[in-house]
């Protein structure tokens, strides 16, 4: 095959472009060769990340969160409400006020987690002439929205409570799991209590002088995805929250503003002293850090032991378990030292050496031969113990020859 192969065509060498452009091309090629692996890795990572993120929607979490499909959220209720009314989800009082003002007459404000609102915001919201549903309000907002109502107890053991009132939404729903705080109105306040329990009512509707009503619920439990389908919860809530526009206010935690920081509490003298302190540190650093002149460089000689190659070879022998080589080196070393001592020439043959050693020590030549010269199979290269035995016997022998 090789004989019939035509000679390698070399015409491409003169046909190559100018040296400058050739070197540029090779530089680009080098760049490409150097960069293609990282590029491929990054591409693979991006594609994988995109594929993994597909089909995954991140839902917000939190109690009574309108988009939260978890048991503690209230996505189910909000989705149901959206079939009949415009539900506006707001996160702050200002947005809620705007939403209420934008909406029509039939508007309902549902307020959760009202402890996150400031007193001024509560006042503003209470001033809106619109129906309001408070879910487990704080005492402050209860007093703001429904003056005259108060927390008077807490339902303990009951699973469900019966409506036992004239409110159509409640009577239609029947028993519900509205088991939480219990409210009562002061005498003289126009109020309708439903779901009574020992200590008060779990739902209290207070009418304001302007005609709007404030409904207070003792717990947010029936609004959650977990409990919406139990007892008459769904019915109660849908009836209670039926309005053309529902403004769902779930305030975000308030951000801190305007409080005095630690910095402002420090006396001004101490604050100012940071400037000379910085100067002190700078001067201290200069004092300790300034050298007396530059470092003096010096080229140092190599430090390499003369035995390094020998030790390296020992490591190779050991790594390769080269018992045959080790044994032959030990034998040769012994012969090199002993043969001149026996009065023989360094080139003396095995037979002569064995005979001379046997004559001097009285050993059996048959036993000496495999010790001093390799035979097949060599009994001293079988394992480590055999190699150690050889070293011991050779040492004994050289001791007796001395």
């Amino acid at each position, binding site marked *: 095959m090789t004989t019939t192969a035509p000679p390698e065509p070399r015409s491409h060498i003169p046909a190559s472009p100018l040296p400058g452009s050739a070197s540029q091309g090779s530089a680009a090629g080098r760049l490409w060769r150097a960069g293609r692996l990282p590029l491929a890795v990054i591409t693979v990572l991006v594609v994988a990340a995109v594929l993994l993120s597909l089909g995954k929607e991140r839902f917000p979490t939190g109690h009574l969160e309108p988009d939260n499909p978890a048991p503690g959220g209230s996505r189910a209720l909000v989705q149901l409400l959206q079939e009949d009314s415009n539900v506006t989800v707001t996160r702050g009082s200002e947005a809620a006020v705007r939403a209420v003002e934008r909406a029509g007459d039939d508007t309902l404000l549902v307020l959760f987690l009202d402890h996150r609102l400031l007193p001024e915001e509560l006042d503003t919201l209470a001033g809106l002439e619109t129906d309001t549903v408070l879910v487990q309000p704080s005492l402050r907002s209860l007093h703001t929205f429904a003056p005259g109502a108060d927390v008077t107890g807490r339902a303990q053991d009951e699973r469900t409570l019966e409506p036992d009132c004239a409110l159509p939404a409640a009577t239609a729903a029947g028993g519900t799991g509205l088991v939480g705080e219990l409210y009562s109105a002061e005498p003289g306040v126009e109020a309708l209590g439903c779901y009574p329990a020992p200590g008060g009512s779990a739902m209290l509707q207070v009418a304001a002088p302007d005609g709007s009503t404030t409904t207070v619920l003792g717990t947010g439990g029936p609004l959650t995805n977990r409990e919406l389908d139990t007892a008459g919860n769904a019915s109660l809530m849908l009836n209670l929250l039926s309005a053309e526009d529902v403004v769902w206010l779930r305030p975000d935690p308030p951000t801190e503003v305007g409080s005095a920081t630690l910095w402002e509490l420090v*006396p*001004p*003298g*101490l*604050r*100012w*002293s940071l*400037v*000379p*302190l910085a*100067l*002190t540190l700078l*001067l*201290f650093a*200069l*004092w300790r850090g*300034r050298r*007396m*002149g*530059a470092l*003096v*460089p*010096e080229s*140092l*000689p*190599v*430090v*390499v*032991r*003369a*035995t*390094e*190659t*020998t*030790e390296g*070879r*020992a*490591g190779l*022998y*050991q790594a390769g378990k*080269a018992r045959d*080589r*080790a*044994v032959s*080196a*030990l034998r*040769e*070393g012994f012969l*090199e030292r002993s043969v001149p001592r026996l009065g023989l020439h*360094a080139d003396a043959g095995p037979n002569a050496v064995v005979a001379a050693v046997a004559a001097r020590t009285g050993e059996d030549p048959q036993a000496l031969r495999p010790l001093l010269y390799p035979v097949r199979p060599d009994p001293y290269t079988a394992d*480590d113990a055999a*190699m*150690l035995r050889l*070293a*011991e016997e050779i*040492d004994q022998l050289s001791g007796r020859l001395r």
Partner: protein
Amino acid sequence: MVVTGRAALLALLATGAVAISGSLGGTVTYVAVGLVVLLVAVDVSLAVGPRKLRLSREGDTSLRLGETAEVFVTVANPTGRRLRGSVRDAWPPSAHASPKAQPLRVGAGERRRVRTALTPTRRGDARAAGVTVRSIGPLGLAGRQRTLSAPWSVRTLPPFHSRRHLPGKLSRLRELEGQHTAMVRGQGSEFDSLRDYVPGDDVRSIDWRATARNDGVVVRTWRPERDRRILIVLDTGRTSAGRVGDTPRLDHAMDAALLLAALAGKAGDRVDFMAYDRAVRAQVKASGKGSQVNRVVEAMAPLEAELVESDPAGLVSAVLTQGRARKLVVLLTDLNATSLEEGLLPRLPLLSSHHLLMVAGIKDPQVEEMAAERGSPEALYRAASAERTLGERHRISAELRKMGAEVVDAGPEHIAPALADAYINLKAQGRL
């Protein structure tokens, strides 16, 4: 610019003052910081400018390794102000200059001499890196610093530890010349003179022809050859960098070469010196009679082992270009089988046809210790590897001897006397 601890302390005081200033903080801060900066600036401007100082040097220029040399810097202050501060004479780390920095006070128009002691731990030339002068102002807060150039160089010579062998070897040499108190007949090989027979002379040295012409019996006297040429070649290649004990092979070789040079100089031979790896690194040619030791020592001082493979072929040709007169070539190298077999052995006949070659190698006692290790397979592998090294050394020595070269193979402690003995033996045999 430099600042002192006093400046930092002043700034710390300013910090304290501002801290207790209360509502006046802003004003007090400006005043305090401004005061500190101002005082520092004033002190810097009042300090004597180091650039105006005049420096001069004196002191030792060479020393043997292990000794201490003194170098002095004289600082002259031609300005009208008093210089207060410190000075550092900077040297490479291996020169071990002490003290590192010392206080300096030079009055207006005065001069001060600053002493620095050097105790180098490495052979070779150490060059002064510069003199750093720090001048502090009158308030002691800050000052100026500058590194001035004051070139000086101190050469550290090989220690020549083997000098202690010199008296013993010289007495052996005198024995050859028949001048020794033991009154042994000179065994030299060169005819010296005829003299009358005295009882006790070896009858074999009677010159019968001269006796026939004279009244009494006349004997010939012999003396060792003189005015022979010796070329000491130091291999500075890769293998000479290996450390035997704690010293590179090169330094052991230098020690041996120095003893040989001293001995041969005393014996009336002319000693040339050459250091070679791939090129001639140093060379000393004998000029007339007398000891060349000092010149050889000077030439050796800056030599370092180069990390290249030596080129024996180039070495042989460099030796041959030194003249065709027969000489003893002493090659101090490692008896490394591979490099010698490939490089030197093929060219040995060429060299031997003109000159007598003596190869001296330094044995590593650690290899022999390794060869005696026993007890575990690991120890045996080490022993076997050491045996292999020893075997190769043995083999190359035998080959060199077979080709007519003299071989001296001894440990680092014994190489210098062994080489001297080999030289004396050659002289006694009249083979030079």
